[in-house]
């Protein structure tokens, strides 16, 4: 934690705590007690989390969280492009999560790529009599209609676990019959406290059913790596992969953005795993380290400062040839990055940003905002754990507010007090703050833009932040009469 502790004028531990106490006062006593440990002023010197996390959401308070199914289908499985992903249960879950994450995919839709909505569309009779038979039939239908699909995942929705269906046994039988991987994932939405358990369950499912079932055909090289925890939002993987290849590495598989099942299955043969989204995929990195001795490294491809640090750290895992390429790549990109900063920084310097995203991006993007001269005055996560908050502490300025699974009420009140120039969060929050006249960018979906990863991504990120903060439309919010 070599980072210098930064301060924001006007923000002290006392002022932040006072703001928190005021917000907490609105709650009934029981909820207040539950919420209090989840809000706190940042203490970067400690390098430790200042809040509790990964606890049950308080009922009735308008949380931004999703469920385990959302973490499994939307995050981990959905981006694997060459598998059919069946939302097993009633129609809604799959319908709501259909094409709403922006994990872009190459291939031909319905032929080699299956970014569609497959569901067993449970009816009353399936609840009463069970859905196993239906599942068996639909798996065969999917295989017949989509012969190039490399496998099928079965993602359980709430009723499946409640009525006692055995998707694991169906998957095993049908996988043998069709000679096709059919992966059962028990990710019912009622499990756990957030999307996070869905990530974990999915990681475990990959461990149990996928990894080690394929071998790469090309000879191994010392530069074989896997890119873990990049979901290709708005094309992030394509930007990141190009950069990694530019420094001489072979990206053998990507988990799971624009992902391919068989390459994921052969990942046990790589020399290094580099992980972007630690929250959703650290589990499998740890498994691969223990089981196959593959080291892993966290990295951050948001903004030139963090990209440079990350490229050098990645280079340190390899020999001099890679390290030389890293320096050459940095040298080539730095003037381009400086030109971007020179263009946007004068318009963005000193602007304040508040963040609430899933489990990684707040801490990972702070550096990129700072590259543009902005400062982060509040950050939090929907579903982060304490190790995420530990990693966040040094990234945030001293005494700024940290909020875990904040209610919409808390977020709104904090914004009223802190008056940020930009808020980066999700679709459910976007229009609330825009009504208040606060510029906003969706930071889950890159607000229909992107990529934001890598050097290529920073150019787009900088443009997007500038146009959000400095759009003349904000000047019209207050009427002159």
């Amino acid at each position, binding site marked *: 934690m070599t980072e210098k502790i930064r301060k924001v004028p006007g923000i002290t531990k006392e002022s932040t705590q006072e703001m928190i106490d005021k917000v907490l006062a609105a709650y*009934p006593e029981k*909820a207040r007690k539950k919420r209090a440990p989840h809000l706190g002023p940042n203490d970067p010197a400690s390098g430790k989390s200042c809040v509790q996390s990964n606890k049950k959401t*308080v*009922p*009735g*308070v*308008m*949380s*931004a969280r*999703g*469920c385990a*199914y959302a973490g499994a289908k939307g995050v981990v499985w959905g981006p694997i492009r060459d598998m059919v992903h*069946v939302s097993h249960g*009633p*129609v*809604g*879950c799959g319908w*709501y999560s*259909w094409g709403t994450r922006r994990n872009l995919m190459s291939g031909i*839709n*319905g*032929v*080699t790529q299956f970014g*569609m*909505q*497959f*569901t067993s*569309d*449970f009816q*009353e009779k*399936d609840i009463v009599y069970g859905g196993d038979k*239906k*599942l068996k039939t639909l798996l065969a*239908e999917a295989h*017949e*209609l989509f012969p*190039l699909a490399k496998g099928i995942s079965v993602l359980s929705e*709430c009723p499946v676990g*409640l009525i006692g269906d055995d998707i694991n046994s169906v998957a095993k039988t049908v*996988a043998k019959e069709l*000679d096709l991987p059919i992966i059962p994932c028990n990710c019912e*939405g*009622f*499990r756990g406290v957030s999307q996070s358990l869905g990530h974990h369950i999915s990681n475990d499912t990959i461990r149990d059913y996928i990894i080690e*079932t394929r071998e*790469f*055909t090309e000879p191994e090289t010392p530069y074989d790596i896997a890119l873990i925890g990049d979901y290709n939002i708005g094309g992030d993987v394509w930007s990141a992969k190009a950069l990694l290849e530019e420094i001489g590495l072979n990206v053998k598989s990507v988990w799971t953005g624009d992902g391919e099942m*068989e390459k994921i*299955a*052969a990942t046990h043969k790589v020399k290094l795993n580099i992980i972007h989204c630690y929250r959703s995929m650290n589990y499998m990195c740890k498994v691969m380290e223990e089981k196959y001795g593959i080291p892993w490294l966290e990295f951050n491809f948001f903004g030139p400062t963090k990209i440079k640090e990350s490229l050098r750290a990645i280079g340190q895992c390899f020999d001099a040839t890679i390290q030389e390429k890293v320096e050459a790549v940095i040298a080539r990109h730095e003037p381009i990055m400086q030109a971007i900063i020179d263009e946007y920084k004068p318009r963005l310097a000193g602007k304040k940003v508040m963040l609430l995203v899933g489990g990684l991006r707040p801490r990972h993007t702070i550096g990129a905002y700072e590259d543009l001269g902005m400062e982060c005055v509040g950050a939090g996560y929907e579903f982060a754990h304490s190790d995420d908050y530990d990693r966040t502490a040094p990234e945030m300025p001293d005494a700024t507010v940290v909020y875990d699974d904040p*209610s919409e009420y808390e977020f709104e009140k904090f914004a009223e007090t802190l008056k940020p120039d930009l808020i980066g969060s999700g679709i*459910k929050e976007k*229009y*609330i703050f*825009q*009504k208040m*006249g606060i510029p906003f960018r969706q930071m889950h979906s890159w607000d229909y833009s992107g990529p934001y990863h890598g050097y290529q991504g920073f150019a787009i990120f900088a443009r997007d932040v500038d146009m959000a903060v400095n759009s003349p439309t904000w000047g019209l*919010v*207050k*009427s002159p009469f």
Partner: protein
Amino acid sequence: MANALGLDVKPVTEYTAEEVERVKNWINSKEYKEKNFARQALVINPAHACQPLGAQLVAHGFEGTLPFVHGSQGCASYYRSTLNRHFREPAPAVSDAMTEDGAVFGGQANLHEGLENAYTLYKPKMIAVFTSCMPEVIGDDLTAFIKNAKNKGIVPADFPILYANTPSFNGTHIHGYDSMLVSILQTLTEGKKIEGRCTGKLNLIPGCDFNTGDYREYKRIFKEFGIAVTVLADISETFDSPCDGTYSVYAGGTKLDEAADSINGKATITLGPYATPKTFSWIKDNYAGEHASLSMPIGIVKTDALLMKVAELFGKEVPAALKAERGRAVDAMTDAQQYMHDKKFAVYGDPDYLTGYVSFLLEMGARPYHILCSRGTKKVEKELQSLLDASAYGKGCKIYMNKDLWHLRSLLLTDPVAAVIGDTHGKFAARDAGIPLFRFGFPVFDRVNLHRSPIIGYQGVINMVTAICNKFLDIKDETCEDRFFEMMR
């Protein structure tokens, strides 16, 4: 324990370009269509959501009402974000965040804690509880839970909390809309019926309509008529609120006392015969005045029917301004008919939209060639068929009940049409078929402001004609040979 399936370890494979090409062509073939239509269990790209979404929509249409999901928090996030994306507006709703222990002990503890917090924090005038899968499967007794909450003093005894059972494994979003609407009206109107009282107002039930422009258009039409109207439920302000530097959790909705007094109305009309059958049936038994169920007024004929019915119920002439408006809409149609005449369309959507699209296309001399309903009854099918039978342009047009958008894709590729009318979800099939998609339905995630552009009434006719014909003309200008590129169209 990798490889729990016990399959052989294989090399990483790539398909050859020839194989990909073969399958690419195959999925566009008639042979594939047969296989696709033979599906028994797998649903691909359905054009319907689940019940709670409709329940949340209608709850937003009442003043100060907080939609409350009894179930897993993820459900609430899905409904909210769907409404956010379509309207580009906030959609505040809470859930009581049931988890595993709810499955064991039932959801009462979560509901009670949730009610206490929601009531204190968001200060609603009414709470509308609806259920997602979990409490439906375990069989929570909401009547008892809510009664207990009031007995325990968690919320005041006279505070309106109501609920609707909205199981996601039964029906679609329109059924959730219906269940919630009738529950709200039953609660608000309880004990409000006054013998001999007549508000003189029209109660208008637009049905499960996600277009705020439609609601504003209804209000304008009845203003022209000089008839006071109570819209049940009015989402137009909730989902089209001004950006003025302030945010309100409750931006709009029908006033609760006005909704309560609707039971003493002069007349009640539903324009969602398929979205509100339960509500309408209850209204017929309980509401004062006249009751009528009409089609959603899409197209000239169905709009005429609404205006004539209103004129009849209120003993008024259709005002000259509306008659002139009709003339303008017909003028727009006759001016533009040549661009749509005999053109084949594929249409899909909820039943109330579908009857409207079909009626409008036939009026234009266009052919609603593939009519696809994701979930619908025999009654819908019969009504659609009778619309087709009554027009020369209905000949050869076919209705596909309980089919999905992957079926639609096969239809578009094997038996082509000029355009699709539907919603954003049809964009993949339309693109593969190389034809335009008109997003008149719900949801629209990929275009701006369409939810503000009415498709009902005479103005709706003009809007649809404008969108469709100009798109066809754009395509002509963009694709014709240079020698046929000309000034006039």
